[in-house]
Structure formats: structure tokens, C-alpha cells
């Protein structure tokens, strides 16, 4: 896909996110919208996957460590053909396959259950290590929030990944700058993020997480880097694409009402064209 097509696809993913959260009357739109471009690129361009065969043995894998942005994962998977887009409206409802946080036993295409922050990079390390041990060549992508990296387990996993030279592992930090209680640097600053990963023997790439050219180059660089894992620190905008949600911590975990939903969907028609 060219850049414009990717932008349009990413906005389809965003519409799915907003629709799902609006329908559920709960969920996390802010961080879902900020990571939507990266997830779109991963599932539509980068990864070796087959929506018709979600358990394909040598598939590339994603661990959504910031599992509260499940709507972003579900919408990406639905738009990629793992299950019908209409199913997004069942998000968080009783009996749904689309649980509030990702459940690998329920949803086709979900490679790891997640949601309790800080645990995903460890699981991703296990998958990446397995590929090394068993001689497989799939790649593993762990997606973290910038607030999430306040969790110590992230750094236990980073130490392990660097030590084991897991060059088939990419840790993506969705650096939208906001967490529930406010700006990450006001709550408990994780900065400088890039230097921290460098200190753990990572290849570190800093990008604009909404620029598909930069996203593509970063994943290419990660693929070509041998002997060390890669961290992509992506500067993003929380609530990206929805005018009234952008850069508002209050939209971390709030659903839009009917009126707001209409505005959001209209916003997402315009952007990318």
C-alpha cells in the first residue's frame, strides 16, 4: 500500500476503535488511536501472517503489552479479515469474544493475553527465544505504553532481551506522553526512554509514530539489525485523529456519547484524504 492507502486504512481502524468503544460505552480510545498507525502498518505491511490461519506456526507475533488498547488490536484484526468488522460492536459485552482486555483463547489473531501492565515484553521474549531455540525465523513485536514502562518488569525483560541478543524482537513504545493521572513526566518520568533501552543493549530508533515512511524505515532497520533487539520509540498523539480527544488525558478511558461519536466519525472521514 502507498502512504495514502495506509492512512485511509489506519482511519478505517480508527473508526472501528471509536465505534467499538462507543458501542461498549466503555474502553480506552486515547491510546488506541495513538497506536493505530503502527498497528495498521504491522498487520497490513510488515508481518508474515495469514488471517485464515491465525495459529500458523511460523507467523510473526504481536504481544499487546498495553492491553487496555484492545480496541486498536481488535479493529486492526477485524479490518485485516480475522473476523467481521461488525463484531467490533460487541466489545466488552457479556458473551463477547472481544473481552475488555485481549484474551488469546477467545479472539482469532490474538497471540497473547494481556492487560495487566508490564507483562507483555516478558512473554514476547519467550516467543522470540523459542524461535532462536527451535530454529524458526518468525519475528515478535511487543507494544508498550510510555506510562507502562514505569513497571519494573519491563526492564527485567529488556535486560533479558539484550543479554540473549534477541534480534527477532521489537519493542515499540507508544510515546503519547499521557497516562491516567496526567503527563508522564509529571507523574513519574520515564525519560529519557531511548537512552534507557540503549543502556539495555537495544538498537533504538526514534520516530514520528504517525509518519508511515518513518514507521516503514524503522521496521526495515529492525529487520536488518543483527545481534541485538530493537526498540522503536514512537512519538505519538493520544487520541490521534479525533479532534476533541487529541492530547487529552481525560480520553484515556472514556467512551464518547452519541453526539461526540458523530463528531469523531466525521473527523475520521476527513483525515487522510
Amino acid at each position, binding site marked *: 500500500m502507498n502512504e495514502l492507502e495506509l492512512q485511509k486504512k489506519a482511519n478505517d481502524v480508527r473508526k472501528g476503535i471509536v465505534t467499538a468503544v462507543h458501542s461498549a460505552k466503555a474502553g480506552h480510545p486515547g491510546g488506541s488511536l495513538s497506536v493505530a498507525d503502527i498497528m495498521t502498518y504491522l498487520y497490513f505491511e510488515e508481518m508474515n501472517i495469514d488471517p485464515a490461519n491465525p495459529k500458523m506456526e511460523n507467523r510473526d507475533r504481536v504481544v499487546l503489552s498495553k492491553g487496555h488498547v484492545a480496541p486498536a488490536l481488535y479493529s486492526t484484526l477485524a479490518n485485516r479479515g480475522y473476523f467481521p468488522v461488525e463484531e467490533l460492536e460487541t466489545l466488552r459485552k457479556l458473551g463477547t469474544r472481544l473481552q475488555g482486555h485481549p484474551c488469546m483463547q477467545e479472539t482469532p489473531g490474538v497471540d497473547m493475553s494481556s492487560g495487566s501492565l508490564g507483562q*507483555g515484553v516478558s512473554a514476547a*521474549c519467550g516467543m522470540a527465544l523459542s524461535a532462536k*531455540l527451535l530454529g*524458526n525465523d518468525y519475528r515478535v513485536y511487543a507494544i508498550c505504553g510510555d506510562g507502562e514502562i514505569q513497571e519494573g518488569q519491563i526492564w527485567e525483560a529488556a535486560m533479558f532481551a539484550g543479554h540473549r541478543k534477541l534480534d527477532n524482537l521489537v519493542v515499540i513504545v507508544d510515546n503519547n506522553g499521557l497516562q491516567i493521572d496526567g503527563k508522564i513526566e509529571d507523574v513519574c518520568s520515564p525519560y529519557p526512554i531511548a537512552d534507557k533501552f540503549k543502556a539495555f543493549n537495544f538498537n533504538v530508533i526514534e520516530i514520528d509514530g504517525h509518519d508511515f515512511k518513518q514507521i516503514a524505515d524503522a521496521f526495515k532497520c529492525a529487520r536488518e539489525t543483527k545481534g541485538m533487539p530493537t526498540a522503536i520509540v514512537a512519538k505519538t498523539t493520544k487520541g490521534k485523529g479525533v479532534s476533541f480527544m487529541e492530547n487529552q488525558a481525560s480520553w484515556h478511558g472514556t467512551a464518547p456519547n452519541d453526539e461526540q461519536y458523530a463528531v469523531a466519525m466525521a473527523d475520521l472521514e476527513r483525515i487522510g484524504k
Partner: protein
Amino acid sequence: MADTVKIATRESYGNALVEVGKLNDKIYVLDADLAGATKTGTFKKAFPERHIDCGIAEANMVGIAAGLSTTGIIPFCSSFAMFAAGRAFEQVRNSVGYPHLNVKIGATHAGVTVGEDGATHQCNEDIALMRTIPGMVVIVPSDDIEAKAAVKAAAEYVGPVYMRFGRSAVPVINDNADYKFEIGKGICLKEGKDVTIIATGVCVCEALAAAEALAKDGIDAEVINIHTIKPLDKDLVLASAKKTGKVVTVEEHSVIGGLGSAVADVLAETGVATIKKIGVQDVFGESGTAGQLLHKFKLDAEGITEGVKEFLK
């Protein structure tokens, strides 16, 4: 029991891992800098390429095990009970239990028989923590033979299993030809009619000795070995409880949430017997030898005998 062979179940764990490792090349062992103490060093020596030392980071180790298991590897995660079940509880719950992954947790140095290290390392809470996780199998072997059988059964079972091993040597009590280990099936070691003693782990041999002492005072005790706390062998517990009407549970674990609580749940639902729970009575442990501590906490044969007599008064 001077001439009885004594082996710590952590030794059995290490030895059994080598045996199951020979049969299945998907078995890997993970450690958090304690391979010497957990006895997984034995496996490391036999299969260095299948041993993964994660360093002193138990939460991460459990997460790595979860990730490995999604790819068909069968990881045995090893650490002290305090860290495997305590430190990493939430990782075990959310990264292993919730997705029902095929991860085995080998927790050594459980209970007060850790001894001299004292309260910080004497985990009397792990059974309680692990049995609250839906789908988790919880096994507490009583001796070398049972521990090895448990490891083999865990390797063959598909799903999460928590195994609890001890630091101190315990007598081998299951060395008989018809011994059979089956997950979820308790074993009646001695039939009796006056009281049922249900024990687990290192306390099983103490319970047997207590039954002998009680017999001298004319008390005919039934002794049941519950090696699988979850799923609990309710049929065996209820059948014996109905027969004797009096149940005493014995465990090297807090009386809150362990074997005693599991048995009490069953009895409370049916009302067929009264129960006394012998165990660590809501206190922390302390330094001392394993034997001194078993005595202090009334978990040795003498303490159990005394406890049963009081209960039957």
C-alpha cells in the same frame, strides 16, 4: 525411622526433570539464579542447551515461560515458593493462568522446613495463592517417589501445574509395588475408624507416625495422603469423613487457604464431620533447623498426636 532413606523432594525434582527431559525434547527448565538450590542444576548439566537462567527476576521468568509455552515448548519454571508463587503471583495468574498455558512451576523451599533462612524465605502461603487461580493444578508431594511421579504427570498433563517441594530431606514412604500417582487422586495410607488425618507434603510421614502413637492409646486413625490439593479428591475426603466423623488436616502451610481450608470447604458444604486444622497458625516462621521448626509449630508426629487427642476429647 533411623534406617529409612531420606531424600529432599527438591532433589527428586531435579532428578525427575532429567528423566522427563530424556523422553521429551520440548521440556525446558527456567531458573532465577537458584539452579543449585532448586536442584535444576542436575537438568542443566544433562541438557545445558535446554536450561534458561533468567537471572534474579522471577516475574520476568514466568512471563518468558508463558511466551515459550505458546510455541509448544514445555517450560518448568523454578524458584523458591516465596518467589514463584509470592513474588510472581500476578504473573502466574494473568500470564499463565488466565490463558491456561502449559507452564509448570516447580517451587522448592516451601514451608517452615526451609529452616535457618527464617521467615522471609519460609513460604506458608503458596498453596492458598495458587489454588485460587482457576484451572491451576496444585501438587504437594510427600516423598521422593511421589515427587518424581508428580513431575512426570505434570510433564504429560496439558495446562498449568504448580508443584511444591521441600528443602529438607524426608523419609521415603511410598516405596511399595502398588503405589500409583494420579493427579487429583488421594491415597489412603492407613485405614481407621475413630478419626481421619488428612496430610500433605512433608507432614504425611509425620501423620503416619502420629497414627502409630495414637494406636497405642487406643485411637484408630485413618491416614490420607492428599498430594493434589487442587483438584481435591472430594470423594475420598467425604467417604472417610462420613466414616469417622472427625477430620484433622495437617500441612506445613498456613491454616488459612491451604489443605485445611480446601477440606473444610468440602466438609462445610456437606456437614458430615467436624474438622481441626493443624498447620502454621497465622504467624510468620523463624530461624531454626527444619526439625526444630516442625516441632515448634506442632507439625511433627508429637504435635499431631497431641492435636488429635485434644480434638477427640
